[in-house]
């Protein structure tokens, strides 16, 4: 009887299994298979991968995405650390309010964000005009529709994300630790060097990697702001696959495979680092 029921319960999972198979497993397998094939998906060779690694048209996308993500993640991380540290010292009510505020603003990404930055920093943007009145030409050192603009726009969503991930670590830092250290005669500097920083370091590293991965995966904001003028992994894959005249789906598939491998590697490094530091703290 028990066995019979178990089997029935398992049968109820079949629709979900079918969805997972149809829309997750099969597409990923076919994509991997095609990354080794020719234009029609036949044959087996590493030609697509060799082409990506040897032609700047393709590997530039990886390089651009990599640097924009590193810069925006670093800037986002540093700013988020200040905010998280300040937030952890506010009262409970304010903390709750700010968390809610961050969740609300999370909807403001992609097309709306790109557009708002155009209003602010575009050719006829508000900041551009204000600087012009002061006799400074923004265009002479900053171009919104380039990698600079992308990196700056990414910072807008990297900061709040970083705050959400970092804030628990800062909150976990007991104020009494500082007092105890001071009582024992240590300086503020040695408090941070020996207690503060080692305590938050795993979170900081983990957050950096999450922000980096977040930047690498960003598509909508980049697509809306620069279209195809700055080559990024995500937009390059999309344009290789979504059949415009330059459609080369097998290259798109191979890029997607490389991209996934890169992302998995990044996450594994994150796991390893966390492991390393956690043991260190113990």
């Amino acid at each position, binding site marked *: 009887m028990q066995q019979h029921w178990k089997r029935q319960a398992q049968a109820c999972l079949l*629709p979900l299994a079918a969805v997972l198979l149809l*829309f997750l497993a099969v597409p990923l397998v076919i*994509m991997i298979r095609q990354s080794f094939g020719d234009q029609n998906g036949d044959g087996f060779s590493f030609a697509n991968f060799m082409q990506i690694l040897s032609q700047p048209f393709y590997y530039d996308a990886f390089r651009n995405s990599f640097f924009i993500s590193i810069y925006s993640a670093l800037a986002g991380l540093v700013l988020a650390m200040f905010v998280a540290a300040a937030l952890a010292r506010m009262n409970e009510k304010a903390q709750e309010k700010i968390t809610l505020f961050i969740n609300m603003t999370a*909807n403001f990404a992609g097309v709306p964000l790109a557009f*708002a930055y155009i*209003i602010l920093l575009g050719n006829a943007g508000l900041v551009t*005009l204000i600087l012009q009145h002061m006799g400074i030409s923004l265009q002479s050192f900053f171009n919104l529709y380039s990698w600079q603009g992308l990196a700056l726009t990414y910072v807008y969503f990297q900061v709040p994300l970083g705050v959400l991930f970092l804030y628990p670590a800062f909150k976990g830092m007991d104020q009494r630790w500082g007092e105890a250290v001071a009582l024992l005669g240590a300086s503020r500097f040695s408090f941070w060097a020996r207690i503060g920083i080692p305590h938050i370091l795993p979170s900081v590293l983990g957050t950096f990697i999450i922000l980096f991965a977040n930047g690498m995966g960003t598509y909508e904001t980049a*697509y809306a702001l620069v279209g195809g003028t700055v080559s990024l*992994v995500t937009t390059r894959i*999309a344009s290789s696959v979504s059949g415009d005249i330059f459609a080369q789906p097998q290259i798109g598939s191979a890029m997607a495979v490389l991209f996934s491998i890169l992302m998995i590697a990044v996450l594994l490094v994150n796991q390893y680092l966390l492991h390393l530091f956690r043991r260190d703290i113990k």
Partner: protein
Amino acid sequence: MKKMNRFIITLFVAFMCLPILVTLVYSFATEWGKSILPSGYTLKWYAQLYQDPQFLAAISRSLILTVVTLAAVLVILVPSIALVAIYLPKFDHLFKPIVLLPYAIPGVVLATGLMRTYTNGLVPLFAVLSGGLFIYSLPFMYQSVRSSLQEIDGTRLMEAAEMLGASKVYAFIRILLPNIKIGIMVGSLLTFSAFFGEFQLTNMILGGDFETIRIYMLRVMKVNGHLSSAVVMTYLILLVIISALIIKLTNMNRKRSSMMREEAAFKPIVKGSPAHELLNH
């Protein structure tokens, strides 16, 4: 020190609000770009927008996509999550990583796989898109339903119902589901706002053939910025209402569970979870 903290937080809030504020002003401005302040204010962009049949069509398309996919999620996914949690705990080792996997797969990768598999016309592309969105709802739904089940101790609740003579199916539908209603609603609202604002999969798989609200927004942005900012503000107000509902429901859940068990510190896992932010851009 205290003043310093307040200053940093104020700066942060201002930084986050600035783009939204300029969009708001832009949507009411007759013209803005020649001088620092707009030359005048008007409601004509909103009037024009709400009379635009293409805007209404785009909203309807987004709604249809969202409602159809959400219905599939509620019928297929939610019962499966509850079933695994209560009757097949051995499956959980397998189930959990699969369900959380979409966090690790960038949208562009899944979209590539879906397109390479289904562009032959075997399955209508609308269904393909809907299936892709379904995959991305797995982590949201899993987390909100699971935390709700933990709150009410679903396994023991079902045992009690069966001991009192209810059949398994009856207990599941009439007792378990009503008790995790709030978790399901919170998960649904989160999924709703994610689906409603979806851009990447829609743009790659269907593009201009199925103009949803985000794709309409982008097209209008290139033609008339004022109109586009009116779209953005309308869209944001809608999502703020949804967020307010989520918060209200989460608070209800918290109050109820603290009445049930004093020691159980309910964590607003769903709404506070940083991971939920990841799926947005």
